[in-house]
């Protein structure tokens, strides 16, 4: 039977760990709520932009001629891996890292693969196996559209200059607080879906259709990246909340087990003490 003092100090330490994990769970829950609200807030903009762009490309005769729609033979691939800056969020970062490595090995086996890492955790691991084009950890401190747009602009420039022939995004998409799904999304070149919505509206276009499409494409790319980062951010808090919830549960279970062992040990000690006293008294009487 383990010694009483040892068990007692373990109970205390498990108890304080439990306090920390449950506090972290609360914090993540609050941040998750905020992150989800931000996703909801951007939806009207994203939807309207997509709708406009689709309407326009559908009615456009021939190619838009945009450099971002240009399909090239794929030799150099850039994977944008979005992870988090902090750990303690279960398999959140590991999932993105593993998927990035798998895609690089399987889908783009014979190609040159570079990565852009957004988030420190992904950068720590991926920089060991791939050349890193650039890294950005600061975005999560101030997650605004403008900051995301700046990254998107750099990516667009890389593509326009022909440094890469394909750019894909890899991130945890937010399904609900407990479930995140790793998503691989094509960023560039853009796919101009020739969906004929049929009802081509009779709009005046000022200046011309082509010019409008050319301004809308970069906007929609920026929105796509912003959405991916936002999604990943909400997923991070969801994952952390779930992980911390499990940790708190485990700690409670461990604490109950330890308390039981402690009480058993205490009882055994008392019993043996009584036996000793009784034995001593018997010896005196005898």
């Amino acid at each position, binding site marked *: 039977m383990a010694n009483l003092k040892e068990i007692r100090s373990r109970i205390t330490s498990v108890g304080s760990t439990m306090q920390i994990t449950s506090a972290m769970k609360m914090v993540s829950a609050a941040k998750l709520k905020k992150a989800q609200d931000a996703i909801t807030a951007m939806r*009207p903009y994203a939807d309207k*932009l997509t709708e406009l762009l689709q309407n*326009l490309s559908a009615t456009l005769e021939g190619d838009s001629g945009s450099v971002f729609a240009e399909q090239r033979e794929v030799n150099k691939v850039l994977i944008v891996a979005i992870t988090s800056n902090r750990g303690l969020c279960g398999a959140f970062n590991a999932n993105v890292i593993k998927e990035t490595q798998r895609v690089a090995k399987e889908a783009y086996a014979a190609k040159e693969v570079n990565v852009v890492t957004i988030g420190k955790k992904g950068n720590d691991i991926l920089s060991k196996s791939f050349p890193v084009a650039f890294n950005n950890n600061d975005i999560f401190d101030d997650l605004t559209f403008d900051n995301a747009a700046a990254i998107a602009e750099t990516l667009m420039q890389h593509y326009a200059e022909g440094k890469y022939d394909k750019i894909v995004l890899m991130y945890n998409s937010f399904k609900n607080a407990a479930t995140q799904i790793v998503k691989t999304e094509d960023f560039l070149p853009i796919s101009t879906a020739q969906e004929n919505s049929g009802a081509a509206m*009779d*709009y005046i*276009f000022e200046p011309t259709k082509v010019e*409008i499409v050319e301004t809308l494409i970069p906007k929609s790319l920026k929105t796509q990246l912003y959405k991916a980062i936002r999604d990943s951010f909400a997923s991070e808090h969801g994952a952390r909340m779930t992980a911390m919830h499990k940790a708190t549960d485990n700690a409670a279970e461990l604490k109950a087990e330890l308390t039981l062992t402690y009480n058993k040990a205490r009882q055994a000690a008392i019993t043996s003490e009584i036996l000793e006293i009784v034995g001593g008294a018997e010896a005196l009487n005898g």
Partner: protein
Amino acid sequence: MYLEIVTPEATLFKGEVTSVAVPGIDGEFQMLNNHAPIVSILGEGKVKIYGDITIEKQYADRFTKGEKDATILAINSGTIEMNDNKVIVLAD
């Protein structure tokens, strides 16, 4: 007519207005009731909203007051769509 100003971060304004002037890339233009359906892109400048409107408190610091009771929002670029007396400004 109905006006909606949407940014990637929030819907700044929605409601009925008398008219709105926007900074088109080739110069400012104004949209009144029953304007023909139009899609256009906007440059850097001011969106001027005319009419008796109320701005939600949390976004009030984004807007300023101008002459003739115009409510002004400064934008860097944007897109405007008008159809069926409904104007949507995507500003960023």
